[in-house]
Structures are given as structure tokens and as C-alpha cells.
């Protein structure tokens, strides 16, 4: 499999000063597009992916050969209709699907960066992706959309570039990572670090991968994406291909087997150091602090029309945290709509077939597009 063959890359020449103080330039930003840009160039939607996503939003991911992570929402005739809109998605910097990240070689040392890669932030990710607008000659996006970490990028994007998008749809996200969010991310990072193969991030030079640690990180995180009710209904105490308990530590229960499977498939497609870097970027995300305790100031210069969506069973980024964004927007008289979607699929609801969500997303986009916002 030649990953590079299937990946479109923009080399960003313009220097980008990162929040950590370092400046990067001539770095690769991997992206994919769907649909076509119209003559007016007013139908572009920039989609931001979540922690373990990538630029392959829909269709078959050419690298993993699986469905794109947002296949339910993006495609011909779907909520984000690729017959109508030009969808752009970039792999975040720090990621591992072609964009500048810890698995790249440091040109100075000729060694893989590993943990010598600069710590990046949500702000850095967004500032890297703004270059795509120039590349495509787009003055103003029709929309910026994303769930979870993608939603954080939406908020940061509007705050940094208030006049670069007509609409903004942050989904199931927060303006500031909570102690609980940081705690779960730290659990994942420690699982990776506890894997002997990790070797302080230098596993590439040893030709090994900390797959056990990364799998545990994924398993723990996966639980946070689901709801208790959803898990109970799907798995309950059902046993895995056996009639009775085996009085041992094999996967007796279906839920154990399911989590082990989720962990094992994840390590094939994701880089452990990228996992460290991206979770760190999420933990550092605090738009409230960036604006000295007043989130409203992040949005005071924008005319963008917002639509905020949360899910009833999402306990990772609960409705109240999404509502805090609505409140901050209302405080500065922004144009904001909000709906909480009923779903027992937990935080993952935004990635799954949740008809009420998909309907709301489609209606908001299509009606807003027909309005011809300036």
C-alpha cells in the first residue's frame, strides 16, 4: 500500500508561528475534496475532523479501505450534499494521514520527529488550514462544520477569521476542555507511555510500535464515546461465543471482545505519537481563557450564522457545555440557533445514523444556502 499515492498535499510555504513559540514553514497539509467548487466560489464547506479522523470524510477511505468517518452525513443527496457543495477536509497538523506530524522526518536531523515534534494546538491546526482558502481561491466559505474536536476547530476558526465563513456548525463540543476530558486523555497517553515499545516516542527507529498501549488508549476513549444505555442495550451481559463464564481472563463478555476489536483495528491506522499530540491539543483548548474569561469576545466580530447541536446522551461534551456557547453568542447578539438531539448513542451520535441530527444539519445548510447570506 502506497499511502502517498492516494493523498493530495498542499505544501504550505508561508511561515506559521505555533503557539509553543516555534515557527514552521514549507510543511505538508494533506487534504481531500468532494463535489465541485461553483463559478461564484460560494459553495465551499470546510469540514474539520475529530481526534482520530482524517481528510477522507466520505466514500471509501483509500488508505484504510473502510467507509469515510462521516459517510452518513456527507455525500450525494446527504446532509452535506456533495452534489451541491464543495467539501474540503484537511488532516490536522500533528496527525498521521499525510499532514505535518510526529511521524515525519526532521529535515535537520534526518530522524523521525517523534516527541521532538512541536506541541501543537487547535489554534495552530486552524491557522494551518486557512491556507486552503487561498489555494482554492475562496474568499469566504459557505460553512465551517465539525463535531467534537472538529467543533472546537469551528469555534477557533470563527474567532480567528470572523469574516471567512457565512455559517458555522459546531457539533457536540465545548469551548474549554474540562478536567474530566483532560483526565480521559491523560489515561490514553499514559497507556501509550506504559507500553515498553513506545521508547519515549522513538519507536520508529526501533521498528516497533506501541500497539498494546495505543489499543488500550483507544478502548478507554471508546467507552467515553458511548452511553451507558447504549452499551447496555447493545451488549448487556451477553457472552462472547460461549455458553457460560470460563473463570479466566479471556474475553467472556461481548463488550470485552468488542473493545479489544476496536483497539486492534485502531492501531493499524493510527500513529501513537499523533495520538499524544492531538489529545494534548484538545486539552490545551480553552477559548474562554484565550478571551480573558469572556467567551463572548471570541465571537464579537463575526456575522456568521451559527447552528449548535448537542446530543442528550453525550456525557463527554454534554448539552450544557454546548449551551454555554449559545449563551456566549447571544450575549453579543450573534445569529445562533440551537437544538439538542434525542439519541442514546452517546458522543458518537454525530458520526452515526441519527436521523433527527442528519435532518437538522441538512435543513440548516440548505435553507441558509438559499438565503444567499453575505
Amino acid at each position, binding site marked *: 500500500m502506497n499511502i502517498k499515492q492516494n493523498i493530495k498535499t498542499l505544501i504550505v510555504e508561508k511561515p506559521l508561528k505555533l503557539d509553543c513559540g516555534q515557527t514552521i514553514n514549507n510543511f505538508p497539509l494533506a487534504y481531500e475534496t468532494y463535489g465541485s467548487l461553483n463559478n461564484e466560489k460560494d459553495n465551499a464547506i470546510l469540514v474539520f475532523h475529530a481526534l482520530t479522523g482524517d481528510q477522507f470524510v466520505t466514500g471509501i477511505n483509500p488508505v484504510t479501505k473502510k467507509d469515510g468517518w462521516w459517510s452518513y452525513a456527507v455525500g450525494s443527496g446527504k446532509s452535506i450534499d456533495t452534489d451541491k457543495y464543495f467539501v474540503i477536509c484537511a488532516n490536522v497538523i500533528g496527525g498521521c494521514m499525510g499532514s505535518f506530524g510526529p511521524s515525519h522526518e526532521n529535515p535537520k536531523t534526518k530522524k523521525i520527529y517523534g516527541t521532538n515534534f512541536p506541541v501543537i494546538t487547535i489554534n495552530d491546526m486552524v491557522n494551518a488550514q486557512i491556507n486552503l482558502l487561498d489555494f482554492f481561491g475562496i474568499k469566504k466559505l459557505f460553512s465551517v462544520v465539525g463535531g467534537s474536536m472538529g467543533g472546537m476547530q469551528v469555534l477557533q476558526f470563527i474567532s480567528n477569521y470572523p469574516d471567512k465563513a457565512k455559517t458555522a456548525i459546531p457539533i457536540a463540543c465545548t469551548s474549554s476542555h474540562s478536567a474530566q476530558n483532560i483526565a480521559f486523555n491523560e489515561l490514553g497517553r499514559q497507556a501509550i507511555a506504559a507500553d515498553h515499545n513506545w521508547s519515549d516516542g522513538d519507536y520508529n527507529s526501533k521498528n516497533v510500535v506501541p500497539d498494546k498501549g495505543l489499543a488500550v488508549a483507544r478502548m478507554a476513549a471508546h467507552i467515553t464515546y458511548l452511553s451507558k444505555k447504549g452499551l447496555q442495550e447493545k451488549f448487556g451481559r451477553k457472552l462472547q461465543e460461549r455458553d457460560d463464564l470460563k473463570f479466566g481472563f479471556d474475553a467472556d463478555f461481548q463488550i470485552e471482545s468488542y473493545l479489544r476489536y476496536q483497539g486492534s483495528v485502531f492501531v493499524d491506522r493510527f500513529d501513537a505519537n499523533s495520538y499524544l499530540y492531538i489529545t494534548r491539543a484538545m486539552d490545551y483548548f480553552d477559548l474562554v481563557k484565550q478571551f480573558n474569561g469572556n467567551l463572548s469576545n471570541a465571537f464579537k466580530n463575526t456575522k456568521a450564522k451559527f447552528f449548535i447541536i448537542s446530543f442528550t446522551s453525550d456525557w463527554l461534551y454534554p448539552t450544557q457545555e454546548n449551551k454555554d456557547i449559545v449563551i456566549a453568542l447571544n450575549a453579543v447578539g450573534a445569529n445562533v440557533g440551537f437544538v*439538542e438531539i434525542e439519541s442514546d448513542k452517546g458522543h458518537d451520535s454525530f458520526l452515526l445514523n441519527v436521523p433527527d441530527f442528519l435532518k437538522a444539519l441538512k435543513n440548516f445548510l440548505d435553507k441558509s444556502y438559499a438565503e444567499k447570506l453575505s
Partner: protein
Amino acid sequence: MKPEYKIISNLIEKDAKVLDVGCDDGTLMEFLKKNKNVNIRGIEISKEKVQTCIAKGLTVIEGNAEFDLKQFPNDSFDYVVLGQTLQAFINPEIVIKELLRVGNRAIVTIPNFGHWKVRLNLLFKGTMPITNSLPHDWYNTPNIHMCTIKDFVGFSKIINFKIFKSLALINENVSDINKSNLIFKNLFGELGIFLIEK
């Protein structure tokens, strides 16, 4: 479309900034947008109705007026509309004060419990009145604070707000309410429509 929508529209100036509290399926919002070119937002408690509003391209926030008006700064809107829901709130006093805090003016409509049909219903049947505008049984009604047109006028003195204009709806005809005809309007008005100020 409810007959009072036209009347509400007549009370609102063109291009005004309006909040519709309890905007239901957005019919009034659409009507005001079309007729008065208003910049309008809605708050609605029902998820299903919020979805209907989104499908109409309206800007609506899912929420409860009793708690979620707090988020709007003072004088955010020129007008705040509260259609036939004051009686459903736990604390109507707080709601009225909130309406007049976030809006310069408020338009409040109330189903009149003093209407003669309601009175006769209770007098002759001896059971809680059920009419076209009050279709619920006592045990499943959302209306926990019913009032009459006269009560609302009295309320303005008790909690201190000004009634700028008061109208009664009788058989889809609208008429002014004043001191001298209050008893009559309170008996025949199906709906009271009030334009109020701080």
C-alpha cells in the same frame, strides 16, 4: 394561521429586532419576516417544533423561556412576543419582567378565562371549563396560571408595567380595551392582546 398573528404584526414596526418566545412551529416568525422584514429569533421547548422551524430556515434556540431568557443581555430586542403561554409558566411575574428586560416592548397574548363560555361552563357543569381555546382536562392542562383580561390589567399595577395598547379578539374581530369597556371585553373577549412596556 391564528387570527391574532395579523394583529401582532400590526403592532410591530418594520425591520425591528424581534424574539418570539414559545415560537411553536414558526408560523408567526415566518409571517412577521415576510410582512415586516423583521430580524427574528425564536425560543421553543419542543425538539420536534425546533426541527420544524429549522426546516423553515428560522433561527430558533431550543430552550425554556423560564430559564433561558437569562442569557440575553438587556434590551437585546425591540419586541418580545409571548403568545398564549404566560399561563403555562411557574412564575409569570418573573417571565413578564424578563420579557421587558430583554425587549424594549413585549406583546403578550392571553386566552381569557373570563370569557362567558368559560364562566357558563363552570357555572352549569360544575367542572373545569373545556373550550376551543382551552381544550385540556384539568389534570393534563399545561395551563397552571389561567387569568382573565381583567386580571392581566390588574397584574400591570401589581408588578408595575405599562400597558401601552390592549386589544380584545372577539369572533376574529379586534377591538380596543379601555377602562369603560373592560367589564364587557372581559366577558366577550376570547383573547387579550397587550403591548406592554417597563
